[in-house]
Each structure stands twice: as C-alpha cells, then as structure tokens.
C-alpha cells in the first residue's frame, strides 16, 4: 500500500503540471489588455503602459512568461496581482474562508444525505422514501442562485433571523446558511446514491448470510450493509469536495462571503492571469488530494480491492 500511495503521488505531478500549463495559457489568452484596462475609458499613457507591463513581466513572449511562471511557482512565488500584492497573500486570505464554507457544506451533505438515503433505502416504497424522492428531486432542479435568494429573502428579509449577507466571513455560525445552499444539490445526490445502493445491497447474498447467522440488526446494517453501500457515495463525495471549493462563486457572491469564489470573480473581472491561475493551482491540488483519498478509502470499505 505504501508503494501504491507513492506511485499515486508521483502520478499527480504530470497531472498537476498539465493542468497548470493549460490554465496558464487559457487565462493569458483572454481578450483584452489588463494593463490598458486600468485606465478605464481613457487612453493609456504609452510610457507607463510599457513600464507597467515590464513590472508585471508581461513584456516578454508568452513562452518566456510561462517559463518564468513555472520557475517561480516551485519556489512558492505565485506572482503579483495588478495592485502589487502577492497572489499567495490573496489566496491565504480567501482559502481559509472557503475551506470552512466547503467543509460545512460537506458535513451537511454527508450527514444529512447519508441519513436520508439510509432510511429511504431501508424503507423502500414507504412514505418517507417517497417524500425524500420528491424533496431531492426538488433540490436538484432548483438552481443554486434561486435557492440562495429564496433563503436570503425568507430568513433575512422576512423573518429577520440572520443578516442577508455574511458580515464576518470567518464566523462559522454565519456561514451555515450559505453552506446549506452550497451543499443542497450535492445533498440530494448523496441521498439518492445512498438510497439506491442500500436498496440494492439489501438483496445481496452476504446480507442474507448475515441475517441468517443471527447477527444483531445494528451490526448487519452498520458493518455489512453500510460499508458496502458507501463505495459509490464516497466516490461522489470525493470529487464533490473539490467542486464545492470551486463552485462557491455563486453562493459567495449572493452572501458576500470573502472566499475563493469572491476573489476569483474579482480577478477574472480584472483579467488578472496570475491570480486566476494561482487559485486554480490550489484547486487542482485539492482535487488531486481528494481523489487520492477516495481511492484509498475504497480499500478500507472493501478489502477485496487491493493495491498493487
């Protein structure tokens, strides 16, 4: 298993380099000149434009810029924003916020999603199952912005329980509502995946054996049923963690959360290639680590899966 982990870590390197390369050229190919745009409606001063481009390292060929960028990346230098701040500082401020938001959403969808799916799967065809199907269908079909605005209107404007936007982005309590909005669609998928998986495995031979052996019900469900049913759910949850981090743009915008989504939105608006690729680099890492964890978890859940 140690060898497997090492190999997976090594495999991450080309994937990482490839994604970073692609995102570098994609962000630098966006139309519009970010330097000239600083002058707004007015014409840019040619001398200053040149000086500015020189400062930002934009006055050399794209390939040279790429080499410089990659070289700096490995020394931990993600470049500078147009206002002269280190991109790592910007990431360092935004990432903890989004990690909190994403983890809250993750816990929400994991706990509630698996619970709903488990009960629905065990009581297939009953009232709870049917209502959970309707509820999850509803959640899947409502776009995140709509859900966000509805929650904002109901809980903040109508009921006045909370403030419409998050006043302190590091406050976990204030992040709960945005996290629920963010995690709601995934919650529906988790619940449905769990339900199907549970319902299918209920009919499996090993379940009959376990019941025939006279094992207590808790053990039958907890050890035998759950463990085998969680494999597809874990696969989904693993990729979803990355999706939650990157997909927070809309939710963070609605609730004015100062996280990755907000910073990315700002950077894309200003055409700040360095900031955009910096964030993507971090998100790629999150995805890679999450998918590694998923693969490793398989073996825990199902010992028949072996690593060579």
């Amino acid at each position, binding site marked *: 298993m140690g060898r497997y982990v090492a190999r997976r870590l090594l495999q991450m390197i080309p994937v990482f380099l490839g994604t970073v390369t692609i995102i570098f050229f994609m962000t630098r190919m966006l139309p*519009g000149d970010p330097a000239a*745009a600083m002058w707004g409606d007015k014409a840019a001063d040619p001398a200053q434009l040149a000086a500015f481009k020189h400062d930002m390292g934009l006055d050399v060929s794209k390939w040279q810029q790429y080499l410089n960028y990659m070289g700096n990346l490995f020394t931990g230098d993600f470049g500078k924003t147009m206002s002269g701040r280190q991109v790592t500082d910007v990431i360092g401020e935004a990432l903890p916020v989004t990690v909190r938001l994403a983890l809250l959403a993750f816990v929400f969808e994991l706990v509630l999603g698996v619970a709903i799916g488990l009960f629905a799967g065990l009581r297939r065809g009953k009232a709870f199952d049917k209502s959970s199907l309707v509820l999850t269908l509803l959640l899947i079909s409502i776009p995140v912005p709509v859900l966000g605005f509805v929650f904002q209107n109901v809980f903040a404007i109508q009921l006045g329980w909370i403030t419409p936007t998050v006043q302190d982005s590091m406050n976990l309590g204030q992040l709960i509502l945005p996290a629920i909005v963010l995690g709601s669609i995934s919650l529906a998928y988790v619940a449905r995946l769990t339900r199907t998986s549970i319902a299918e495995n209920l009919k499996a031979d090993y379940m009959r054996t376990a019941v025939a052996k006279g094992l207590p019900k808790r053990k039958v469900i907890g050890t035998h049923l759950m463990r085998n049913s969680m494999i597809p759910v874990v696969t989904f949850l693993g990729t979803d963690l990355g999706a939650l981090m990157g997909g927070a743009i809309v939710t963070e915008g609605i609730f004015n959360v100062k996280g990755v989504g907000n910073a990315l939105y700002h950077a894309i*608006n200003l055409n700040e290639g360095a900031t955009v690729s910096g964030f993507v680099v971090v998100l790629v890492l999150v995805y890679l680590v999450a998918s590694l964890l998923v693969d490793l978890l398989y073996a825990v859940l199902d010992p028949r899966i072996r690593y060579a």
Partner: protein
Amino acid sequence: MRGASQAKWVVAAVAVALAATACGSGGSSSGSTGGGASNAQGTFSYQSTEPQNPLQPANAMEVGGGRVIKTLFKGLVDYDPSNGQLRNQVAEKIETTDAQNYTVTLKSGWTFHDGTPVTAKSFVDAWNWSANVKNNQINSDWFSDIQGYADVHPDEGDPKATTMSGLKVVDDTHFTIALDGPVSYFEYKLGYTAFSPLPDAFFTDPAKYGQSPIGNGPYKFVSWEHNKAITVAANDKYAGVDKPKNGGIVFKNYSQADAAYKDLISDNLDVLDQVDPSDLASYKTDLGDRAVDQAQGAIQSISFSLYQADWKPENLAKVRQGLSMAIDRDTITKTVLNGSRQPANSWVAPGAMGYKDNTCGEACTYNPEKAKQLVTEGGGVPGNKITVLYNADGGHKEWVDAVCNSIRQATGVECVGDAKPDFKTARDLIKNKKVNGLMRTGWVQDYPLNANFLRDVYGTGAAANDGGYSSPEFDRLAGEADKATSVEKTAELYQQAEAQLAKDMPAIPLWYYKTTAGYSKNVQNVKYDSFGDPVFTQVEVKQK
C-alpha cells in the same frame, strides 16, 4: 486486520492533506459598526469595492480607491457639494493674471495625520513625484499642463529631470505654477485628488505608504482588510471647512450590488453607492424617503467611428442627426431603464458649470418622420445597416436593443447590438480604432465644468476621443476658451464649441446618469454630490 492497517494509511493521507490545506485559522476581528454613544462619534458603513491600486492620490482612477482617497486627502480646492462651485481648502488664494502663471498661497494650520505641517513643499514634491514617468502613477497626465512635464514624463525613455520647471516653492506657504500655455480652468482641475499634497513619510517608502496612507483630509486611515473592508476615522485636527459630522466610515466590499442592496434594506449597510438594476423597480417603495434619485455629472452616448471612411464627418452629418432623432429617449429611459436616467439634450451633464440646456436642439428630439427624411437626404447609412458595440457585462444590452429598435422603426435602417463579452474587450477594440459603426461611450466628469465634457472628449487627439472626431472649428473655439482669463468666460466660450458638435454630431447624447441610491435607518442627512458620491462628512449617525 487488513482493513485497519489500510485505514491507518488513509488517516496519514488525511493528515497530510489537512496540513497542506489548513492555511491558518487566524480570524479577522472586525469591530462592529454603528451604535456609537453619540451622533458625532458614530461610524457608518458604505458599499465599496477593493481598490485596484495602492492608496496613493495620483494612483486612484477607479471608484474603489478613489472614494477612499477623497476622504483621506484634501487638496488646494474642492467643489462645494451643494452647488458644485469651487471653494478653497488648503489654498488661501490662487492668483493669476494671464491664466498661465499662478501664485498659490496656503492657509496655515493644516497638518497631515502624522502631525507634520502641510507646506508648499508638500504639494510641489508630491506633484513632481506623481508626474514622473518612473513612478508609474495612473493619473500622471493630470500634470501635463505644467511647464516641464515632458522632462519628467517623456513619451519614451528615461526622464531628463526629476522636477518640473513650472513649479517653484517660494516659502512654506507660497508656491508658483507656470503652465505651458493658458488654461483658464486650471483651478478647477486642482480639485482632482491627483493634486493632493503628500507628507515626507511618503517619499521614504511609497510602497508601504500605499498600504496605510497618511493624508491631510477629514478622515484618517485606520485599516485595510484586503477584499473585505477599509476603515477610516474622523480626523479631529482637520482644518478644512467640511468637518466630519460622524466618527468614521467603513468601506465594505461587495462583489455584487444586489447583496449590498439586501444589506441596506435590512440596515446592515448604511449608505449605498448605486442600486443595482434588478432592484430599481422597487427601491423607492422599499426605502421610502430614504431613496435617492438625483442628477449626476455623467452622460451616456453612442459615438460614430469617424476614423472609418464610411463615417467621415463632412458628408454624413445629416445622417447622424437623423439617427439621433430616431431615438425615443423619453420612452427608453422610463421603461427600459426604469427612470434611472434622464434624457439628454446636450453633450454636457447638468450640474456642471457651463451646462446649457438643449444645445443639441431638434436633433435630440424624437421625430421619426424627420429622422427618416434626414437619413435619406444625407445619402443613407453605409450598407443600410449599423451596429452598436457595447460590453455585455455592464447591463447595457437592454437599452442598446431598445435604441436599435427605435432606429429601425423610425428610419428603416437595420440596427443590431454588437456585444463584446466584457468592458476590457470592448475598450480594446475602441482604443485601437477597430470599430466600424457605432459604439457605446460615456463620460463621467472629472471636475464639474463643461470643458471637461467637451475638450477632453471631442478635442482632436484627446485621450477619451473614442470616435476620432476632429474638427478644426471645434478645436479653435476650445483653444480660445482655454485662453480666457476667467472660468466664467471659459464656460461661455465652450458653449460655442459645443454648438459645433450639434452641427457635426460626432456622438449622439442619449441620457444623463442619475444617482439612484439610498441609505439605512441608522443614518440621516445623506446627500450626494454631482460625482454620485455621498457627502461623507455630512452623514449623521443616529443616536441608538
């Protein structure tokens, strides 16, 4: 147990992953806003965005930084927010006899927030530094009227000098300014923040200064939490005429105007900059008498690409007037724009000195029959089809479509909007003169004088002359206006230059911007100036 040993690996991997992603949990501890014991000490929050540049007066062109700078610095003069008139601040008096050589006398008693006095040197050093091409200040061309500007800011290569020959310090309270030529309204320009003084502390470490500026204005800098908020506090030693009536301002960042609006109506944000388009229809009912709807010194227009052979000024003026006449401004501003704009009938926004009502005359009045007739008489539109270039990210689609509809119905000319994904892309095409047809243009005043709407937008080669308009007659009249010895005379002469625009119609004025904003129940006496900014110092925080 096999499962257990593998679980160990997972735990290890989780630990590594967490260590890699746990980027510290140092929380921010922003103080709560509002709720001060007495009115004068109360702070209020204001909707803002992250500044694009470090906070230096000559480096703030966009509103995110510009508004903060305006509260931190005060120059020689500023504009009285109640009527837009020039008034002295640090300047005791500014004298000239020929509109070219100025003698400035400073008031004594002004200090920077670090306690150092504001002297003639504070101004001259600041201007020299800001104009220097090496220092890369985005507003440096504001100093281009001053003698010797070309030495510190050549078009190419290194500067030949570090100081402009036109600036001379006489003593602590006097300095002189010599311009390259007469600019009668130079005093008006001096109200722009780029002309603010800088303390000695600035020159020792400009980069550090830009993160925590020391100004001489009504507010002192407190903190800048990047992407979150900027906080300023009232400066109790402020020597200006506009002493703050509140304890300070928190400039809260919002990436979406709608989120700010929601905060405002639930009193979590105190003063708004502009209601977002989706809430325009309801904001007056939501806010009642706290809703603001007033004129702003900004105009929206569509310009012709006169640099293209298709649109050369002399032969197609009639067509251009006809197209202007084909636009039903009243209906579009009322319906499509929810009354957030006011139909324009001149090229200068009301409120600016020298604004003259109806200089556009008949050409800006909706008249479909006459419009069609003029377009036909003028020889028609090239290809009988026009496009209007605009940026799709600024909420312009609706009105561009409406304008095109109006033109199509009135004249039969095919008209379509030409959307570019964002502002930068559209500006790139416009600046590089790659447009053929019409383009969305607009102007927000730098200072409330008609010269700013005319000379800087329609003068030959002017920085904002997007359409490439060049009229010897307009340039002659503008040149004469610049030589006048009083601002009043200048404004009057510029009205003559504006009359030339009515003849040539290089751009169609559509409507003036309005400040559609509002404030929360926590504050009162919120007024807006013609720049669309709240008069920060006047805002009163209610007793709680």
